[in-house]
């Protein structure tokens, strides 16, 4: 199946980003296609490369960047990113900043859009 994923919460405060990550990873392992992951609302904060948790904790940002290396497209909404100070200067590897047109396209072309929010 062809999935698109929408992440609406930032890292750590909510589980949404963790759940979305595990979903994407499991879907890929089962041979499904991930058209892309779109970050909206506080979800854009997952793209902050300054995220630096304690050693014994998961690095939510880096996990996404690692998925990007495997070819998963990570798209950050520009309007909500600007509101939260996420720009190209602090954008983590593998993420790109774009508009809601990308989410629209993902929603149309995927079989399912799966949302992870509060």
């Amino acid at each position, binding site marked *: 199946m062809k999935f698109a994923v929408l992440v609406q919460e930032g890292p750590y405060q909510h589980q949404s980003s963790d759940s979305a990550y595990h979903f994407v990873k499991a879907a890929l392992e089962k041979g499904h296609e991930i058209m892309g992951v779109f970050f909206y609302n506080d979800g854009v904060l997952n793209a902050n490369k300054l995220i630096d948790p304690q050693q014994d904790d998961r690095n939510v940002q880096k996990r996404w960047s690692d998925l990007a290396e495997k070819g998963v497209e990570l798209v950050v909404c520009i309007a909500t990113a600007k509101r939260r100070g996420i720009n190209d200067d602090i954008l983590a590897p593998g993420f790109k900043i774009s508009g809601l047109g990308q989410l*629209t396209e993902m*929603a149309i072309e995927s079989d399912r859009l799966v*949302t992870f929010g509060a």
Partner: protein
Amino acid sequence: MFIMRKAPYGTIYPFEGLESVLIMGAYEQDISLLFIDDGVYTLRKGMDTSALGIKNFSPTFKALEGYDINKLYIDKDSLDIRGMTLDDLVVQPELVDEEMIPELIEEQDVVIPF
């Protein structure tokens, strides 16, 4: 379909939800909105948000018509519980009940909750 579930101020979900509705409206999609739970407050008319220092965005819902977004639905129970009627709202959505809502959602290709 976009589902507005939360109160208008206190979190940014309804406001950024509305922003995404307006932008997706420009892509000529078949868009509908469902207001449920505290989301019904986003349509309340006569709100004064000046003490919050946040712009009152409820009147913006009146502009949806200009984007050809005419399919607005509101949960009757959510209105009743809050002592509200359609007369309290800036727009006039279609009243739906708990039996119609799952059917409406079933009809959608994509559902985005806020």
